[in-house]
Every structure is written in structure tokens, then in C-alpha cells.
């Protein structure tokens, strides 16, 4: 299979096609998405007005769908930086076609994730108190709290990946600038910060890009480790576990890659980018999904082993209850989606069949959402004092806000593909055969 099979001359035209006048379909889709977002915002305002009681949360279960969503979206936000930074450093050629959209997805996922701490706190209007800032009242934040670490970890991750993303966009924006007219030209001109593809600019750009890639790499590992410590540092049986950091990072990459594929498969179809996003790309990504699925599955088993081996009756109890108690359905759904469903990807035939891959990645997305739900909710429902046990079920407000968060995410993504090249034009050109006379002839013959 020829992996790079697009002519240099088509790149600009094909990739920039998404920036052309939007189709009716696009506008309809966008309307639906924005309506969903407005519904979610409405739910949140309702919650702000009435109180957290409109969510399904209660006394043993103080965290529910909102934190599940938070962890889920932070997890989704992992693939982009992994692809653009780590794979860049490893010079994996298959990243060039996908990294831009993956990176955009990362930014938007982290933007979505960042909403949830605000949505979830009881007094959202005071959430800024979580930021340490000098003040006359000499009030300070608690640096021992994992939630504060979260503020820093997610904040850093978001700012660094946004800069990385914006910097990477500059050469491509200059291409749009060169083709745009009127107001557009001015805006893109501003965004292109005077890029003229000179050698010296390229030299600095490449050095800077590499630097950012190196800077981002530890963040990929740190942010979800810190998120995992929200749970691991606590005293809740089922949360209090040293395995959480690697387990969460693997899970994040797993869900992030699945999400990238879930988005790219229809995207490729709609915009006829089969030439650029080939089966080969999906094969590579599926391998990564398979690897992380194995890590996640191993973590599940390790958790159970430790629950048994530690001889801690409370932990043993909660792990037993997780599998056979009230939340058995989400648990087995998680096991099936994250451990069993990816197994067919061992077969190349399945890996290269995008219908199958799409279906499996959807399952993985569902499974990873339920993984977080399981960890958070089932542990909280049955803690040390049985008299204080309880149940939790999301309310329509929580589900509405969750739905709204998906719309929020897709709204940004759809806007992104409308206004920016969703594949890195310059990097695609790097791997395409350069435009020489000989090449053109050869292509015409083949």
C-alpha cells in the first residue's frame, strides 16, 4: 500500500476546500449544535438559580456526572498533544495528516473540560477563589488540595497546548491569507503575523516548534496524573490507589485516540479527503488504541488484584460491589467496551475496515465515559458507614448539560474546520513528493 498518494499540487485545493462557502447541510448541523448548546446553557442557568439540588447529587455522592464529564473531556484532550508533540519527537510520519485536527480537538476538549469545575461547584460565582491571587484579606488557597493541583495542571496544559497549536498554524494561515480577499485577508493577515516563508523564519519556526513539542510532552503525562490524584489522594475506598496516575494517562490516550478516529472517519468521508487520510493512518491509530486498551485492561485487573491482595476489607467490598452491586451495568459496560470491544482490532482486516473501526471507537468513547462514572459514583455510594450509603442517578439537568458540552465541543470543531485548515498543509507538503517535472510525469503515467 502506498501510504502517501496525493500530488503536491492538490494539497492546497483539497485541504482548503473546507473553508469554502458552507453547504446547507453544514448550516443545518450547526443550527442543531448551537440549539443543543443553548439548551445546555439553559440547564446551567436553571441550576445556578435553583441550586445544585437540581442535579441528582446527594449526600454520600457529592460528585457525579459533572466530574465524570470533566475527567472524560480532559481525557479526550490527550490525543492531540500526544500526536503532535510526542509523535513529532519520534518523527512518526503518519501524524502529519491528523495532528492538526487532533490538536484542535485537544484544545476544544480542554475548553469543555474546563467548564465542568465551574458547573459543578456550589457557588460558581465564587470559583475564582480557587486561584491564588494576592489580596488584602490575606486569604490563600490550600496547596495541599488536589483540586488546586487540577487548576494548575489543566490551566498549564490548556495554555501550552493552545500556544503550540497557534504557533503551528502560522504557515498555513499565511497560505489562506495569500488566497483570501477583503476583510478575510486582513484578519488572516493579522493571524499570520507576517509569515513570508523565508528560510530564516522557517529555521526559527522549526526550532521553536520542536521546543514546544518537548515542553508539551511531560504535560501529556502530568495533566491526567494530576486529575487522577483528585481521587487517588483521597481516603475513599475505590479511589485511594497508587495505580491511578498511569492508569488514567493510558485511559486518556485510549479515549483520546478513539475520539480522534470517531471524528476523522466521517470527516474524511464528508470532505472527500480519502487521499490524505488513508487506511494506513487509521491502522496506525488503531494500533495505538489497541495498546492503550491493553494497558487499561491490565489496570482493571491490577485494581482487583490489589483489592484482594491488600486484604483491606473496605476496598475489597467496594470492588466486589462495583462488579455485582447496584452499578453492575455500567461496570460490565465498561469492561465490554474498553477490554473486549477493541480486541477485534488485533486483526488487520478489522483495523482497515473503517466501518468496524468507527463502531469500535464509539463503543470505546461510551466505555471510557462509564469508566469514570464507575470510579466516581460507585465508590462514593458505599463507603465506610453503611448507614450513610446512598444511590445516585443523573438528573435531566446533568444530562442536559452533558449534552450541551458535546454541542459546545462540536461547535468549536465545526467552526474550526470552517475557518482553518484542518490538516497541516505545510506538513502534508513535507511528506508529499515535491513538485518536480519528473514526478508529475510519473504520476500521470501511474
Amino acid at each position, binding site marked *: 500500500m502506498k501510504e502517501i498518494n496525493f500530488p503536491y499540487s492538490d494539497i492546497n485545493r483539497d485541504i482548503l476546500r473546507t473553508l469554502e462557502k458552507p453547504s446547507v447541510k453544514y448550516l443545518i448541523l450547526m443550527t442543531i449544535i448551537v440549539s443543543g448548546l443553548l439548551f445546555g446553557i439553559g440547564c446551567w442557568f436553571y441550576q445556578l438559580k435553583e441550586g445544585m439540588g437540581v442535579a441528582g447529587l446527594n*449526600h454520600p455522592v457529592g460528585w457525579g456526572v459533572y466530574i465524570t464529564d470533566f475527567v472524560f473531556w480532559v481525557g479526550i484532550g490527550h490525543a492531540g498533544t500526544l500526536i503532535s508533540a510526542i509523535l513529532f519527537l519520534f518523527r512518526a510520519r503518519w501524524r502529519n495528516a491528523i495532528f492538526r485536527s487532533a490538536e484542535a480537538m485537544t484544545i476544544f476538549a480542554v475548553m469543555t473540560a474546563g467548564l465542568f469545575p465551574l458547573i459543578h461547584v456550589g457557588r460558581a460565582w465564587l470559583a475564582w477563589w480557587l486561584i491564588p491571587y494576592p489580596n488584602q484579606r490575606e486569604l490563600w488557597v490550600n496547596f495541599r488540595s488536589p*483540586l488546586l493541583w487540577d487548576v494548575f495542571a489543566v490551566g498549564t496544559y490548556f495554555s501550552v497546548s493552545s500556544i503550540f497549536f497557534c504557533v503551528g498554524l502560522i504557515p498555513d494561515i499565511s497560505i489562506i491569507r495569500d488566497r483570501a480577499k477583503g476583510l478575510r485577508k486582513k484578519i488572516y493577515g493579522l493571524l499570520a503575523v507576517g509569515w513570508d516563508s523565508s528560510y530564516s523564519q522557517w529555521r526559527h519556526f522549526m526550532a521553536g516548534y520542536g521546543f514546544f513539542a518537548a515542553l508539551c510532552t511531560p504535560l501529556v503525562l502530568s495533566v491526567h496524573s494530576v486529575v487522577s490524584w483528585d481521587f487517588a489522594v483521597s481516603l475513599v475506598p475505590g479511589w485511594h490507589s497508587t495505580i491511578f496516575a498511569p492508569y488514567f494517562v493510558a485511559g486518556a490516550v485510549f479515549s483520546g485516540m478513539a475520539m480522534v478516529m470517531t471524528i476523522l472517519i466521517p470527516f474524511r468521508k464528508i470532505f472527500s479527503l480519502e487521499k490524505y487520510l488513508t487506511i494506513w493512518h487509521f491502522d496506525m491509530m488503531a494500533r495505538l488504541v489497541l495498546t492503550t486498551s491493553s494497558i487499561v485492561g491490565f489496570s482493571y485487573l491490577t485494581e482487583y488484584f490489589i483489592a484482594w491482595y491488600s486484604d483491606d476489607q473496605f476496598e475489597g467490598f467496594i470492588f466486589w460491589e462495583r462488579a455485582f452491586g447496584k452499578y453492575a451495568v455500567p461496570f460490565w459496560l465498561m469492561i465490554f467496551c474498553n477490554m473486549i470491544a477493541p480486541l477485534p482490532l488485533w486483526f488487520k482486516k478489522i483495523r482497515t475496515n473503517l466501518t468496524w473501526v468507527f463502531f469500535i471507537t464509539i463503543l470505546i468513547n461510551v466505555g471510557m465515559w462509564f469508566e469514570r462514572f464507575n470510579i466516581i459514583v460507585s465508590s462514593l455510594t458505599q463507603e*465506610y458507614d453503611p448507614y*450513610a450509603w446512598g444511590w445516585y442517578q443523573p438528573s435531566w439537568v446533568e444530562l442536559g448539560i452533558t449534552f450541551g458540552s458535546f454541542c459546545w465541543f462540536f461547535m468549536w470543531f465545526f467552526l474550526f474546520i470552517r475557518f482553518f485548515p484542518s490538516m497541516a498543509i505545510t506538513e502534508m507538503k513535507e511528506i508529499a513528493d515535491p513538485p518536480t517535472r519528473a514526478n508529475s510525469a510519473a504520476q500521470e503515467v501511474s
Partner: protein
Amino acid sequence: MANKIDRRDFLALMGMGGAAATVGCGSAPNFDETWKPWVSPVAGSVPYVPNYYATTTHGSGGAGLWVKVLSGRAVKVEGNPNHPINAGTLTARQQAVVQSLYGTGRLREPTGKSEGTMTWRDLDAKLKSLFETNKGKNIYCLTGPVSGAEAEIWTRFTSEMGTGRHVTYAPYSESDLVLASEKVFGVQKVPRFSLAGAKFVLSLGAQFLETWGDVTANNRDHADMRTVDHGHRGVHIQVEARVSLTGANADEVLPAKPGSKTLIALALLKEVAAHSTTLSVADKATIAGLTANASLESAGEASGLGAEKLKHLAESLLTEGALVLPAERLELSGDGVSHHAAVLLLNKVLGAVGKHVNYAAGKPVEHTSDHRGIVDLVKDLNDGKVDLLLIHGTNPAYSLPDGLGFAQALAKTTSVAFADSQDETTALANYTVATSHDLESWGEVNTYTGMDMLMQPVMTPRWICRQAHDYLIEALRAATPDSLPQENFRDYLKTSWTTRFGGGADPEKFWRDSLKAGGQFALPEGVDLPLSGNMGADLFASVTESKNTGMTLVVVDSARFGDGSGTDAGWLHELPDAMSGVVWDSWLEMSHQTANDLGVHYKSGLRGGHTQMVQVKANGQSMELPAFIVETISDNLVTLATGQGHKGLSKLYNRGGNAFAFLNSDLDESGQFGIGPHSAELVNTHQDYRMATFHLPGVGDKMVTPLSMLEGSEVRRDLFQTISLASVGHEGGDHGGGHHEVMDPDSTFPIHVDKDWYPERTDDPVYKDRDETFYDDYKWELSFDLNRCTGCGSCVTACYAENNLPVVGKDQVAKGREMSWVRINRYLEKAEHGQLPKVRAMPMMCQQCASAPCESVCPSLATYHTKEGLNAMVYNRCVGTRYCANNCSYKVRRFNWFSFEWEGDLNWALNPAVSVRQMGVMEKCTFCVQRIRDGKDKARDLGRKANDGEIHTACQQACPAGAVRFGNHEDKNSKVYEWASDARAYRALDSHIKTKPGVTYLKRVVLEDEHHG
């Protein structure tokens, strides 16, 4: 009285001092015990410094109350520490009186059935014309049981105004006990039963820790009895087929079949009398004659307990300090007199009369009422003999059996109801006169001989109104001028009081002193009485075995709602039932087997428990009630608690089914409506019903929690602990506790010995090489003696009152959002098949951990450890991440899911020392930090530290059993330190998770050999 009162007049009256509005005269009294609104400040009074007034109410059963009054408003009701019975403590029900004061059901203005809302001017004119037209005719008065000056004024009114009668009515009557006393001892009194000094208590069903007798005193005496002294402690055996809270605290529950209690009493009497060494020969012969037909065998068979068990029981009774308590009145079917006679005889044989059964303090028969009066009244009403009926302080329309036809009879006369709150009776009356609440009125309650309680108004009435007695005096004075020198009931009461009790040289001073004290308390010592009554040979002839074989319905007295007179209080509805944990409802309690037979399934769900409505038919009545399955009830028995099923209260509180509807409409021999265990027919309607409980029944209430789907495997949690008597009382006459070495905390969870990685606060490196330690002067600690605690829930309500806890309602409780800072964890021990499980109650509240899981995780430092060992909660700084609550291993943090609101005027009873929390804020117990601050400030003003015993938490203050101690753990002489270093002391979950709680629990001492660590 200024009749037409508009806003201007109201303000003018307030300015004058409320007395004018009260007594209906223009002259300002020169006496400073009058009501003083805070429009113009009172000299010498400091705002927000509370005054306490001693008083009592009818609803609290004459308990000594100290009402905390802040800026002219009653905000909290506390116990009068000098009262010999409640001794500063209160039950939940007694504390809730302040909720009826400000409740939504309070009547504000007079109403007439045809007139609608009336002005006071119209009402006064109407009353005047009613009294004038009916003067000399049959003017009847129907009141609750009254005594003293209150009884005087009612009888005087009826006799002087016409030819009517004064009838008293209360749902519960003690007439059978009076009759039995007369037959056995020739005394027409209700004796006072006291557990003080008892060593062996056999209760044939009396729920003496909840509803029966002096509950507060019983709790205290029961706890004292259980205290281990030189290796011994008293024993309590409860005979009942449905475990009540009292039974839950017994050492053994004997599940006798309903209806067999009198047979048991007689068999025991026969056996005990025969073996008694102290009884005279003549008495022995009398008793032998009376009990000729009784036998252990027949009683053992009838009760299902077996003769062997009863024989053993009889042997145990023949010890020093034994006491037998009767069955609950509601479970005696017409044999109330013989049952009580048998119990009195038993106590006589055991030598308990005089010691525990006190006739010297007995309540005179005039202060009690049977139900003959109300039956006669209904007859007179139906015969058209009643021209005018005044009703006050009783709610017969709610509690009378339907068969009597009270409502129809009442329609045949003109009736005027004087009431502070709306109820079923005010809804029926032709005219309803809004009166002042007991806390705003003068009055008198006489509970026992020597216990005369004065009731004084503690604040200006909330609404413009007077008390009922003032209308009587006004009418009497109008009818016969100069007949009554007193212009209002206060003066009347004062005259009556000083006349009756002497008052000596300075009656004024005596009156003032009595008011200050809350009355006169001098309980006389009991004396033994001879068997001098006219028993007659056939006293026990009518006692037969109950013929009930199938399903039986027993109506049980509710600790929370009692006779239904205080049901309009949210605190009581939200206080979980001590045994089932149910809130806001009434239910049919049944066993798993009974439920299975009916096809009833209870499922703990996400929004509360799902059960089915069951139609229960008994005694010609039919009612649909939700079934609730418990493990603490025998098969083929369903129970229904009293006090619910109102229809005439304010909307919120009309819930559940009315158990009184099942009562017979015929009187039994002692003149009361009884029911006793009644055969019942149950039909499952398969209609789904949602119930709210504090826990997950059948799942979260076990001492050992089984894993789902896995039989036999279980987790025992380091929460409630017991210790066997043998391990506490060492041989050689050691004391039960207090003088031992500090318990090794590592012994309970040996595998965790080396796993405490958290340094002690005192080892904090910050304080190394410095003079100070982490805890400078104080480390506040609290201690619960589980051997004393009964799980009554009084502390829960006290916390609601002190700390402004909102009542959230059934739906929110069902979702698990109750706001109680203290909860009573109720666990069930594992039971052998067919046996009733042992019940364990454990108060759980913030443990103020020294290495608190909640503190480290709060991102905004809204919760932190103070230098006094408190786990402080800064509401203003809380953002509401709820991480602290997740990480709290005891699950005692409460989140404000909404900005909860107080119905009606209930916010008037808020404690200004405690902020009311906004939505989105976490809250929890901080050992009543406002009281600590107050106590420290007072001590600082005196230039010293707060002494032990100066500061009380609200829960400690209310606890009738004295199971709570609070104080400074740094003070090695403090009472809390004594308990914390007791041999029985442990800290919940600490052995496992090393949270270092600031609350200690003392293990419950059980008689069983094995004990669980």
C-alpha cells in the same frame, strides 16, 4: 380590649406594652412580668443576650422548660435543670413546641362558619350575644385534661353561666390504671412509675423510653441502671412482638403473641407470689386465690414463649430491685383494669411499691380523664341538650372513633373553638377564636402530687389575640358584675396560686419566685401500701386467651407524634422514626414473611424506597397505607403508629393514616376507647408508593454488611462496638470504667498498628522547640456512652433548633439530602433464623478528626483545624466543590443543595448566633462553636479559662440519658477526659483509617459472652 385593630392601633398597642392587648384594659400594669415588645428597648436588657424564662406547656406533658428569649422572641426551648423529672433534658417532641408557636397552622384572626373571617369587634359582639342568650342554659365546655387554676376557671364558668358541664377529653386515658389502683390499693390515683435504683426491669410492653410515663426520667434511670458497677449492672427485659425503641435497648426481647400480656402477668404473679419470702401469708393467699386459673404453662403456650422461659423470668424477678411495667394501653383489649391490677400486684409482691411505684406522688383522679365524659357529651349533643359548646385545648374531631359521630353531633349546637392553631375541631366549630399559644399564655399544669408547674408567657403573642381563659373571665364579669375581682387570667392564676400554696408572709415574692422557678417541685417519697382495695374474687375471671390467630393489627404509640397534638412540627416529621428510619409518613410495619405472603416488595430506589399500598381492614374500618418491611417484628403482625393522618392541620402536615380511626367506638370497662390487638385483613393494592428513609433498609443498616450476591461473606466495620459484661467487670470488684489505663487503640485492628503515617498535631514540626503546643488551652472533645444512649433522637432535634438546620421535606430526604448534622446510625446485628435481631444505635456527627480527610482536600481552605481541635467550617469561604464531603469517612458533612426556606414564621426561631447558610455551601457540626465562644468569652470576662461543665453542646444538653459528655480534653480532670480514657473508649473507624477523631465512643456493655472488636 380595643376591638377594631388596624395597623396603627396595633403599633400603638405595641408601644403601650402588650399588656393592654392581653388583659383588655387600658391601664398599663405596673408589673414587669408583662409582655414587652422590643419597639422601645427595655432598660438593662442587652440585644442578643438571651433571657431564659421558666415555663411549661400542656403539649410537653408538664415538662420543665426554659425558653430562650432573644430580643423579645422565643427562639429555643430547653429543659429546666431544676425540674426533678426532666432535669434539664427534653425529648424531641418537647423541643418541637417552639415550632407550633411559629407554625404555619397558627390562627391569626377569628372566623365564623357563615361569617368567614371576622374582625375582633364582631367576634366580641358575637360572643357577648352568645353568652347573653345562653345564660342560664346549657353551656358546655370541652377541654383537654386541666388542673389547678385552669380547672377552677372552667368549672366556675360552666356552673355560674348555666346548667352545662365541663367535660375533659384526651385521646389517652389512664382510667384503667386508676381503677386498678383503687381495686388493689384502694387509692384513686395514677401512680408514678420510676426506674430509679431498679436492678431488673420487666416491661410487658410499656415503651417507657419513648412514650410511656416520664420518658426523660426513664431514659436517665435506665441509663444509670445499665451502668456497670462492681461487675454488675441492671437488666431490662421487654415483652413485645414488635421491637420498639425501648425493646431495642432491652437486654432481651421476648416476642409474646399480642393479646397474651395479661396472661403472662398473671402467671408470673402466681409464680412470684408463691415463692416470695417477703409477702404476708394473707396476701399470699389472696393472690393465690386470684390467680388460681393462671399457670405458666397456659401463659407460655398462649404467648408462644414457653413455660420454661416464663419460669426463668419469674425467678429473675425475685431479686432485689425488680420492677414490672405494664403493657402499652393501646395493646390492651378491654382487659386494661385486670392487666394493670396484675402488674400492680406483681410490683407489690416484688416490693417495688413505694420504691418504684409511687402513690404519694400519684396524680389525683380529678386531673385525669376517661372517655365517658365525651360519650355523654355526644349523647347530650344529639339530644339537643347543649345550647352552646366551648372547646379548648383538645382535638376530639381527630382522635375520636368515627362510630361515635362527634362531627355530626357537633353540628347540632353552636360551638366556639378557642385554639392557637388550626386542626380538625376548629374546622367544625361555628366560631373559631384565635388564642395565644401556650408559650404566650398563663396557665398551670399539675403532673403529679407535688409537681405544680406554672405556665407564663415568654413573649408578646405573635398575632393579636388573647388566651381562652380571658374570655371566660370577661364573660363571667359581664354576667355577674363584681363576682370576680380579677380582670384577667394572670391575676386569677396568681390569686389561686398564692391561695392554694400559701405564699407565707410575702405572697408577692412567693409568686415571683414560683414564676422564676417554673412552679413548685417537690416529689414526695413513695410509701409501700397494703393490699387494701376491694379486689373481689373475680378480678381476673374475664382474662382469657386472645382468639386472634391470623393477621393482627396493633396500634402503637408514636414517640414523635404521640396523640397527634404536636404533629404540625417539621422537626418531628423530619426526625427519622427511631426503628424504621422513615420520615414524613405513616406506614404499616410488617415482617418479611408477612410481606411475602401479601406479595409486597420493598425496593430501595434512587428516589426513596418503593413499596406498595396495602389496604388494612380491621374493626370495621378500612385504610390504605404503605407497607414497610422491618426485621424487628414478628410474623403475622402489623403495626401502625399514632399521631399521623391529620386532615385539618396546615397542608404540609396532613400526611399518612390516622391510627385512632381503628379504635372501638364503645367504651371498655374502665371507660376508654381501646382497641387492643385486633384481627385484620390485609389486601395488597399493588399501588406503588414511595417512602423516604434515612438509610437503605435491608442494605445499609447492618452491623455486618454482606456482599451482594454472595452469601456468607461479610464486612464488619469498626463503628458500633460492644463489650461483654464479663470483660468489663473484672473479678475482684473493680469498677466498670473510669479508673483504668488508657485503652490501647491498636488492639482493635492489629494489622494496622504500623500504618499510621500521620503525625499527631502536637508533634507538628512547626511547634518543635517552642513553648506552645498545637493545642494551647483547649482541645474540645465529645464523648458518647453507647451504653447509655438509647437512640431516641432528642439530640437530633436539639441540633436542628440550635444550629438553624432547615427542614427539607420528604422528597429531598428520599434523595438523600437531609440536613441533620447529627444522625442516629441504627444497625441490626445478625440474628438466628426466626429471631428478632438486636438493634444498635450510634449517634454520628462530625468527629472533628485531628488528621481530618476533609481538611486537606478543600482547595479554598474553607475547612481547617483550629487550635482548639475543632474542624472549623468557614461558610463564607466555601465554594462548594463537595470534595470534603466525599472524603469524609463518616459522611457527616451536609451540603446546601438549595437555599432552604423556613415555612411561615419558623424563621423567627432562628438562632442569631449561627449564620443561615446559602445554597452551594457545605455545613456540619462544629460542637456548637457558638456556645464554646460564648462560654470562653464569659470566662475571659472573669479573667480565667472556661471550666469543665460550663459549656454544653445542644445535643449534650438535650440528651435525656446523659449519654453525651463534652469538654476540654487537655484538662485531665475533665469529665470528657475521664470517658475518653475509659477502658471501653474507642474512636470510630480510627483503628482502620487513622483519622484521629475528637469523638470517643464507649462500647456498649452486653450480657452475651462474645463481643465484637
